[in-house]
């Protein structure tokens, strides 16, 4: 016991010994005078609850690693990680942040875990939707993309990984995935090329017209034929509108935002 702990009131020393044992039963004895049979109830329920909270978010990673490796991983997370958020949906996020330090995982594991976690993050993202009209010219107007949206770039084909497909090496070119919440609040993933992904990133702040965004892309890509880019880009924007990724164009000023729950 450290000096700080021994200066604590007795009941807190006991509480910390109690949880130290729950987190790491092999390293820390249960507090003196506590019945082994009853202590085991806590060892089991606290770990099992955490394991099911984490597991619910990572079904694929769980299957890919196999039951024993998965249990050992969650066990280590439980023993070593000090979770700082009282919100339950932050448990999977803390687990994701813990993974890079593990060291013994397959090289695609962190990317796969991120891909699984982002579904939860996008489903529950607390967003506001700017005032918009679903119709309107996407080149002249400011396209509004789905408020809960992220462009993801992975070195592994995370969307294809399963117990039967575990990639041995990274892709020659990274895969671009778009994840977004549509107007029915369903989370969708779409694979796309690098240019579309970049266009969505440029549009996401909701500041540029479709035309200005395409011109910026042309500059970034060193594209000489601006007319061709704009005609191609205009069709692309329409396609994104069909897919519920672009929701329309902005109307009015920024005062006109509505909270999504109303």
């Amino acid at each position, binding site marked *: 016991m450290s000096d700080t702990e021994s200066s604590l009131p007795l009941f*807190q020393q006991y*509480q*910390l010994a109690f949880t130290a044992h729950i987190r790491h039963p092999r390293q820390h004895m249960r507090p003196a005078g506590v019945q082994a049979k009853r202590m085991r*109830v806590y060892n089991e329920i606290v770990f099992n609850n*955490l394991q099911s909270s984490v597991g619910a978010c990572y079904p694929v990673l769980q299957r890919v690693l196999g039951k024993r490796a998965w249990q050992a991983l969650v066990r280590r997370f439980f023993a070593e*990680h000090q979770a700082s958020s*009282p*919100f339950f949906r932050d448990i999977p996020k803390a687990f994701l942040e813990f993974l890079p330090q593990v060291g013994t995982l397959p090289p695609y594991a962190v990317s796969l875990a991120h891909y699984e976690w982002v579904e939860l993050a996008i489903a529950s993202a607390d967003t506001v939707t700017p005032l918009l009209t679903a119709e309107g010219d996407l080149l002249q107007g400011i396209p509004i993309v789905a408020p809960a949206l992220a462009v993801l770039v992975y070195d592994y084909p995370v969307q294809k990984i399963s117990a039967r497909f575990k990639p041995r090496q990274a892709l020659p070119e990274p895969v671009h995935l778009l994840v977004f919440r549509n107007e029915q609040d369903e989370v969708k993933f779409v694979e796309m090329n690098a240019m579309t992904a970049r266009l969505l990133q440029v549009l996401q702040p909701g500041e540029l017209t479709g035309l200005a965004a395409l011109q910026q892309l042309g500059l970034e890509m060193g594209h000489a034929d601006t007319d061709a880019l704009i005609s191609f880009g205009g069709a692309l924007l329409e396609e994104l509108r069909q897919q519920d990724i672009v929701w329309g164009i902005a109307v009015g000023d920024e005062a006109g935002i509505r909270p999504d729950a109303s």
Partner: protein
Amino acid sequence: MKQAQSHHPIKGAGLGLKRELLPQIQAAYGTGLTAHLDFVEIAPENWIGAGGKYAKQLAWFTARYPIVCHGLCLSLGGPDPLNEDFLHQVKQFLDQHQIPLYTEHLSYCTDGGYLYDLLPIPFTEEAVHHVAGRIRRTQEILERRIAVENASFYVASPIAEMDEASFIRAVLQEADCDLHLDINNIYVNSVNFGFDPHAFLREMPGERIVYAHIAGHDQEAEDLIIDTHGQDVIDPVWQLLREAYELFGVFPTLLERDTNIPPLADAMREVNKIADLQMAPQGIARQQPADPISRKRVPA
């Protein structure tokens, strides 16, 4: 109304709002099935800051039902500093959704980090002062009284200086807060630690009760019950609730069902049984001096 003269919107019988039950309640709204569902309860740790379909579901319920917030992670008995940032978020959430009642557990769930489970506080004099101080601070930040719940547990602390009932009474008195009486937890602990649940009930400070829980559990051994909230409520627990109403008057009571979730119709049978008990003559006869919530609200 079953509870006369209360201006408090939380009355009658309620049900914990589990995600599995949520669409069923929405579908059954306005039908006979949910006629006796007077309020619902949510854990703020699941709903604060949640957008998308969760925000819309919450908005649907706040527009139709009075809501109780029953917290899980405040760690009133924990060794870490009280999470005041979180409490400010709770306050904003309660205000935004006009939630009149926030309750928490007489337990701890932190040791420098969150463990997301309810662990027992040793019943010592120092612990009484520690917990009571944190409840007072919580009430200060939230600008309202809170109710704390008697928790279920499995390990008797070898350093305890008093029994559970004395600990509860001492904390409530020093904190000057309300009691969220969990009827099932009294029964669970009476089996796990071999005491008389009826005697325990009579030791509770009835004037502080504003809210109650009832639930089922899993009996693992003759002397061990795991408080899963995963089975139907058993008769001795119903009997304890009836007895509590007789002793202290009727108070709003909620059915907790957290695992092994049945179809809504099955859960509603138990909610309706709560409503029946509240209507029983002995409940009505005693309810006049009770009405604890409206009387005990703290002016903001």
